[in-house]
């Protein structure tokens, strides 16, 4: 004991028992084995990654071409890789919880505290480290290409945002190996997460993980909004922006206004826990209801922040694969804006049951139901886009179909839950869990997977394998339906969310169906992995380097695949909403410009990775009360900025001659390859040049 306290200035409250591997040696039960098994996966995964990087001598490439890069395309891909790694963990945690549910009548195999940790990490990971980085990654890649820009407005800030998001993800990963994560759910509501009830390190991991990542997302929002306002190509006024860009604009605005309440909530909770403040404690005038309000003031806009870009992706997909102009563009824009505004007026529906009285509930209940109107309009608009089109049932369209069918169910249950009368019964039950999975999986995740299939050829220059893609899509849809629709039933039967066990035998068969769905979802994940592997293996047959494999309509398809670092050899002038389609119809899509100009691009910088490392160490040392390390790592951040400010060499020039050479080489390729019809788009003769089938 005394030796520990002597060391405490050095290692804070870390003890040998903080390491899950030590715990399993002391107490080898199934529960501990699963926990330490997960920790081992993290360690083994890290070791394998490091060995592979060393074996293939990729460290230099990783460092120079990726970690130092401020290229929005590379940052976008890194965001998506991060999201996919975290998705794997999140899905596995979900699968373990569903399995526990199936055996929960007899007590199951998980201890309650471990189960609580699982639902907390699952929720935190899926929202903050899967959905958010996945969405931000896709936006990062596509947005500048769609508006004819060379990069986002603040490329270095973009790199720092990625660094902070990675910090949050890293802290959650570390919590698997060192100590325990919070058991307070993804919203970590006090007073349960206060010092009196949870003195351990769990809630602190949550605070620093979400707090730092959330701050990064605020910066991202500012970056995207400014990019859209300032970097659009000439002629692209607001009502000529592609719909995806519109949704990103709304999302960016939501990010700017919704992330700060989260930052405030996490940091005031930190003050409560670290400095004996009493914002949310039971005593001394603390008020836990303020936390709930602050959190959901972020939490509700958050779900629209995620779903709006998803709507944007579906708008692009449905129009491209129906070979038709998007129906009701103005309607869709207004609907998006209405949703963005309304998203800030409904947060109270997350706690109709807090006792605020009928009139307040009525106001927020009606506001919540109103969101169904613009959302419904969007769905009808996409259906009208399909009407009298020529629809190709490709992978993105399969996801879109799944979205239509399943998301509508989620919409119906959403309207139900907007009724305080029904919420009084369904709140905190699995009905609610079913509802938000029902909107987030078919809504956000299916959109992202559709978006990956759709834009992958743009980013990597070859198409993804259709067979494995279709298998994955179908398995996802069936798996989702089987796994989550039954939860509506047990929810209405009265099973509270976050229950590790239950006593009603009627729940068991229903939850077995769910488990069956989980098997489908895991198969879908496996298919996705196989798809990536097969696609990379067969990439010679699916090259679409010319850049337009799907007969696209917006500017990102007008350049080579993958695009050059500077995106556009010359910035296009926009005259139409579907500018690239219009250019193809005019016959000047692949025109050689009269002259080229030098392009100024930002130089690489290590500031993002430095901030990421410093913030991770800062978070870790604050969690474990290692004050000296916290001070050092905290001071490292401003120091890094000061040092960086002395580097005046922040721009590099790509000469006109270089650009002309690259561009001419690509144009030669355009002239050589055979244009293809839509019937041939999934065959190996698709090199990314489309026959003009539509006349204006």
């Amino acid at each position, binding site marked *: 004991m005394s030796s520990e306290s002597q060391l405490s200035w050095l290692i804070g409250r870390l003890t040998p028992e903080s390491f899950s591997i030590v715990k399993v040696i002391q107490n080898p039960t199934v529960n501990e084995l699963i926990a330490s098994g997960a920790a081992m996966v993290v360690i083994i995964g890290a070791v394998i990654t490091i060995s592979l990087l060393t074996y293939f001598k990729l460290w230099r490439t990783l460092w120079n071409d990726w970690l130092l890069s401020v290229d929005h395309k590379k940052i976008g891909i890194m965001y998506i890789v991060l999201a996919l790694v975290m998705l794997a963990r999140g899905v596995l945690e979900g699968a373990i919880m569903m399995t526990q549910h199936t055996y929960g009548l007899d007590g199951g195999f998980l201890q309650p505290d471990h189960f*609580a940790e699982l639902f907390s990490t699952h929720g935190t990971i899926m929202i903050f480290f899967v959905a958010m980085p996945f969405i931000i990654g896709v936006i990062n890649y596509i947005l500048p290409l769609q508006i004819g820009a060379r990069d986002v407005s603040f490329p270095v800030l973009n790199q720092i945002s990625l660094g902070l998001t990675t910090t949050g993800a890293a802290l959650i990963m570390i919590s698997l190996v060192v100590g325990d994560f919070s*058991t*307070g759910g993804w919203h970590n509501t006090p007073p349960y997460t206060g010092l*009196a*009830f*949870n*003195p351990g390190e769990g809630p602190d991991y949550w605070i620093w993980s979400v707090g730092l990542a959330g701050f990064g997302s605020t910066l991202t929002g500012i970056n995207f909004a400014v990019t859209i306002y300032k970097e659009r190509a000439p002629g692209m006024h607001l009502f000529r922006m592609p719909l995806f860009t519109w949704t990103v604009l709304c999302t960016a605005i939501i990010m700017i206004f919704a992330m700060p309440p989260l930052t405030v909530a996490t940091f005031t909770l930190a003050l409560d826990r670290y400095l004996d403040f009493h914002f949310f404690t*039971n*005593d*001394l005038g603390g008020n*836990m209801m303020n936390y709930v309000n602050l959190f959901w003031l972020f939490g509700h806009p958050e779900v629209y922040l995620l779903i709006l870009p998803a709507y944007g992706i579906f708008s692009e997909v449905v129009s491209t694969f*129906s*070979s*038709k*102009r998007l129906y*009701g*563009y103005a*309607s869709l824009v207004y609907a998006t804006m209405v949703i963005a505004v309304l998203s800030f007026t409904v947060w109270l529906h997350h706690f109709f049951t*807090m*006792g605020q*009285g009928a009139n307040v*509930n*009525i106001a927020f*209940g009606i506001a919540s*139901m109103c969101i*169904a109107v613009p959302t419904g*309009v969007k769905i*009808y608009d996409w*259906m009208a886009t399909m*009407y*009298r089109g*020529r*629809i190709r*049932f490709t992978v993105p369209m399969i996801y879109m*179909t799944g979205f239509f069918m399943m998301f*509508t169910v989620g919409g*119906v249950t959403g*309207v*139900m839950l907007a*009724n305080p*009368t*029904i919420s*009084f*019964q369904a*709140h*905190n039950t699995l009905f609610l869990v079913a509802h938000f999975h029902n909107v987030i999986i078919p809504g956000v995740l299916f959109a992202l997977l559709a978006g990956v299939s759709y834009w992958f050829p743009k980013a990597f220059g070859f198409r993804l394998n259709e067979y494995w893609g279709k298998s994955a899509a179908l398995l996802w849809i069936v798996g989702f339906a089987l796994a989550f629709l039954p939860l509506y*039933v047990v929810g*209405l*039967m*009265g099973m*509270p*969310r*976050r229950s590790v*066990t239950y006593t*009603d035998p*009627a729940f068991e*068969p229903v939850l077995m*169906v769910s488990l*069956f769905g989980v098997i489908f979802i895991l198969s879908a994940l496996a298919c996705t992995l196989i798809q990536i592997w097969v696609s990379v293996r067969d990439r010679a047959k699916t090259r679409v380097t010319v850049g337009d494999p799907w007969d696209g309509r917006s500017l990102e398809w007008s350049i080579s695949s993958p695009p050059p670092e500077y995106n556009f050899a010359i910035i296009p002038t926009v005259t139409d909403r579907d500018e690239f389609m219009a250019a193809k119809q005019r016959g000047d899509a692949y025109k050689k410009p009269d002259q080229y100009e030098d392009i100024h691009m930002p130089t690489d910088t290590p500031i993002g990775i430095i901030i990421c490392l410093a913030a991770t160490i800062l978070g870790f040392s604050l969690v474990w009360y290692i004050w000296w390390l916290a001070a050092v790592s905290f001071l490292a951040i401003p120091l890094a900025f000061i040092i960086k400010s002395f580097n005046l060499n922040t721009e590099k020039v790509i000469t006109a001659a270089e650009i002309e050479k690259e561009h001419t080489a690509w144009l030669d390729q355009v002239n050589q390859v055979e244009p293809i019809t839509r*019937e041939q788009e999934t065959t190996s003769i698709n090199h990314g040049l489309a026959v003009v089938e539509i006349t204006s």
Partner: protein
Amino acid sequence: MQSKKTWYFLLTILIIIFISACSEVNDSFLDPKGPVAAEQKAHLINVTLYTLIAALPVFILVPYFLWRYRYKNNQSKYTPNWEFSGILDLVMWGVPFAIIFVLSTMLWHQTKKLDPYKPIESPQPALEIQVVGMDWKWLFIYPEYGIASVGEMAFPVDRSVSMVLTSDTVMQSFLISSLAGQIYTMPGMQTKLHIKADQPGIFEGQNTQFNGVGFSEQKFNAVAMSDLQFKNWINTVESYGVTLNDTTYDTLAVQSTPEEVHETLGNKSMPNNITYFKKVPVNLYNTIIGRYHTGEAIPLDQQPGGALYKLDNLENFTNKDPDKHSKEIGQ
């Protein structure tokens, strides 16, 4: 092919199990036993039906469009540049708007009518019960009778019950689904709930807000009984109950499930997992709320339900070993 058949077979079986399970609804507002739950169920069905008006076109038209306008079908009409129709847009915005207008009116009336704070009419005056949420059990205080219980809430059938609720630990949510909706309980604050049972029976009540490892076991029986049975129940509690004083309350305030409370404080005359208390101090409920309004901080080891509560008195206290846990409380 064989494997495909097996899959279909398995799927069919699962669907049958699923449907049969759905018919066995217990302890839920889908099988209501009181006026509030019955209205909530009716409202759920109404809302679903109205919303389906807007949803059905999606389920029908999407598969139809996908088929009718598939790429290979050259017969269907193709209008690549058609992008707007005023009438269609009017329908798209108008129909959902009309549905939401109707639903909003219903929402307004039902929310007013089923406000948990609104007393339910009944010929006799309402029975008053004070509810205290603790980790991980509910304490029901009957101020008229000076008695209390954990694990069981008895009340007469056909008589409304007027409840005031608070928490002596973290935030919790009190739900008896067969009778009425849930309401949060929070330390230092009071919420209200009114319930009434139309028929005698035992209905499951529970906490729905996660509050630690004993969360799944924070359940109780809400027992609706005849007036006579209720009088007998009060007599039973008065004769067999343990005295609720500072010492017993402090024991109760340690993290424990109803089962553990019964083991430590209960006796053989009380039913399993249920504990009765008598001689409840008149102002107990107000004292519990007042604890958080003294203007002074509550030390971490004196916060009921807290992780450090009474750790000093109960050496080797550990949550990981429930048997040991209850023994320690017994000392």
